[in-house]
């Protein structure tokens, strides 16, 4: 167990290093460097000043030396500087990532819980109306673009039925009481979270129905029934745990995808997460921020993968590794 943890963490560090190297080369491929960005902010400059600045930033050195320096920088938490925001990229990321993570994780949990329940309920009557509903739902979940769904949900629940706020994460002015402030944030997050959750919920309900049908036909369920246990007990105590496994596994693997979805949803609902930050930075060609977001997103996924992997190992020692 201990060895497995160390091995997993070591692999994680290798992965993060690989992301940094990728970032370095993308940064090199990008048009313009940090000096160009500085001079552009200052309204242009003469070539001599540019050359002096490049030397002071070490940009005239050989590529491999720059790469090693860059690796050292990033591991010390320095991702560069955004001249537009006049802030370090690390601070920008730390300011924007929590919103995105909150959205991603709450949507994923919602999708897993509701999806599994839908699937279990559908599996009880495989030919019933609800089972067909799950089939149709999963088709629509596959076919609906998340950003478009967000807009339609906004039209319905913010414009025609003004139940929820249309954009942002806080009301202005903010409620005075702390509880009021939290409720206000939740109120703002309901629509984006559901938008993101619905699509995954749809596919999870189908998967959990299939695995529930498998489980319900297995010997140990027959034994449980033969013992005279009530149907509720059979389903919720014996079958559910095993039927939910594929869904939980898939959810763990899909984290990076859900993160991508969250970025689109944030853009639609104007939430102050990394989505709008990335979008604005691409429009402005602010490359340190763009690559900082890639690094932040990838390392979050790597860390989350390690955590889920270890939880699995703890829960079910037979599992070697899910990733």
């Amino acid at each position: 167990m201990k060895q497995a943890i160390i091995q997993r963490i070591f692999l994680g560090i290798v992965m993060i290093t690989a992301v940094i190297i990728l970032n370095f080369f993308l940064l090199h491929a990008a048009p313009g460097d940090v000096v160009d960005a500085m001079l552009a902010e200052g309204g242009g400059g003469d070539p001599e000043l540019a050359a002096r600045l490049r030397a002071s930033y070490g940009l005239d050195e050989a590529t491999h030396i720059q790469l090693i320096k860059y690796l050292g920088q990033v591991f010390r938490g320095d991702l560069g500087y955004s001249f537009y925001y006049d802030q370090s990229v690390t601070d920008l990321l730390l300011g924007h990532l929590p919103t995105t993570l909150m959205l991603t994780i709450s949507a994923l949990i919602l999708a897993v819980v509701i999806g599994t329940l839908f699937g279990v309920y559908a599996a009880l009557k495989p030919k019933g109306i609800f089972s067909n509903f799950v089939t149709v739902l999963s088709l629509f979940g596959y076919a609906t673009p998340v950003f478009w769904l967000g807009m339609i949900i906004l039209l319905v629940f913010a414009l025609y039925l003004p139940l929820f706020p249309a954009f942002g994460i806080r009301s202005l002015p903010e409620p005075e009481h702390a509880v009021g402030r939290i409720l206000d944030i939740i109120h703002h997050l309901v629509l984006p979270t559901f938008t993101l959750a619905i699509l995954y919920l749809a596919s999870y309900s189908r998967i959990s129905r299939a695995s529930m049908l498998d489980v319900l036909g297995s010997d140990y369920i027959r034994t449980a029934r033969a013992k005279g246990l009530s149907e509720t007990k059979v389903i919720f105590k014996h079958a559910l745990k095993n039927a939910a496994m594929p869904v939980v596994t898939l959810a763990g693997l899909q984290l990076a995808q859900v993160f991508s979805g969250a970025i689109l949803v944030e853009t639609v609902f104007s939430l102050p997460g990394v989505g709008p930050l990335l979008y604005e930075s691409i429009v402005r060609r602010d490359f340190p921020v763009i690559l900082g977001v890639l690094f932040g997103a990838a390392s979050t996924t790597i860390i989350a993968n390690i955590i889920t992997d270890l939880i699995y190992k703890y829960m079910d020692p037979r599992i070697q590794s899910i990733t």
Partner: protein
Amino acid sequence: MTQPNTPNSDQIFSSEEITSEPDVKWQDTFHLFCANRAALLGLTFVCLFILVGIFGPIVIPADPFEMVAMPLMSPNGQTLFGSDYLGRDVFVGIIHGARPTMIIAVTATLVTVLIGITIGAIAGYYGGMVDNVLMRITEFFQVLPPLVFAMVIVAVFSSHIVVVILAIAITTWPTEARLTRAEFLKIKENEYVTASRAIGDRNFRIITKIILPNAMPPLMIAITLRVGITVIYEAALSFLGLTDPDVITWGKMIGQSRDFFFEAWWTVTFPGVAILLVVLCIALIGDGLNDAFNPKLRGR
């Protein structure tokens, strides 16, 4: 894409291993697929969509970028689906957007599948160290959130259509690679593979002529579904403005109307419905293939 079964059946029949009698499984599959009404409906609509993509701009030659009406006009006799904030006809945009959407989705899927199958096949066939290294690389690409990575690629290089296609492929191939690898691991244990090796077939031949055709059923389902995912993926990139400025796509129409859709619901609703319908029909085909290849698992 239109007749998923024919090209592969040819491949099977011409393969030297199965000379005496044709593999009945493909015929069964074909019949099962044809008996599936939902799948045929999907196939019909996808064909219709392809026809619109090919002939639409010829039948309706209007320029989709041209301002033909007052801005933000609701659907009426003049503009069937209304006009956007610049007075451009939404209906004309949807007709003209079909072709780029189709071309990007199909090309990007082909590139994705090519990378995925190659890597998955090599990893699954050779195993050991090769497999280990290739799987670590695959994992690396899986921790990069696809959309973020694609946005970065397009931002760093350019929003040329070729870059967009490559960005989509580079960020999505791991799924196909994993699937191919899993199939190869399973199939290479079969006796006919050992037999083929025993008579001295070269590795390349075993991979492409013996294992790959047998791995096709799950791959074909995955490829079909991949086309749909790519349509949505491309729409997302266009929605964010990361696409060729000279090309009109459905995602771009939605993205450009983002600031106005509270005043003009039709500017985002209709292009979105177009995406939804196309991808839904692709999903029906995928489901149909799934049922046809695995008749026992029907309805799961």
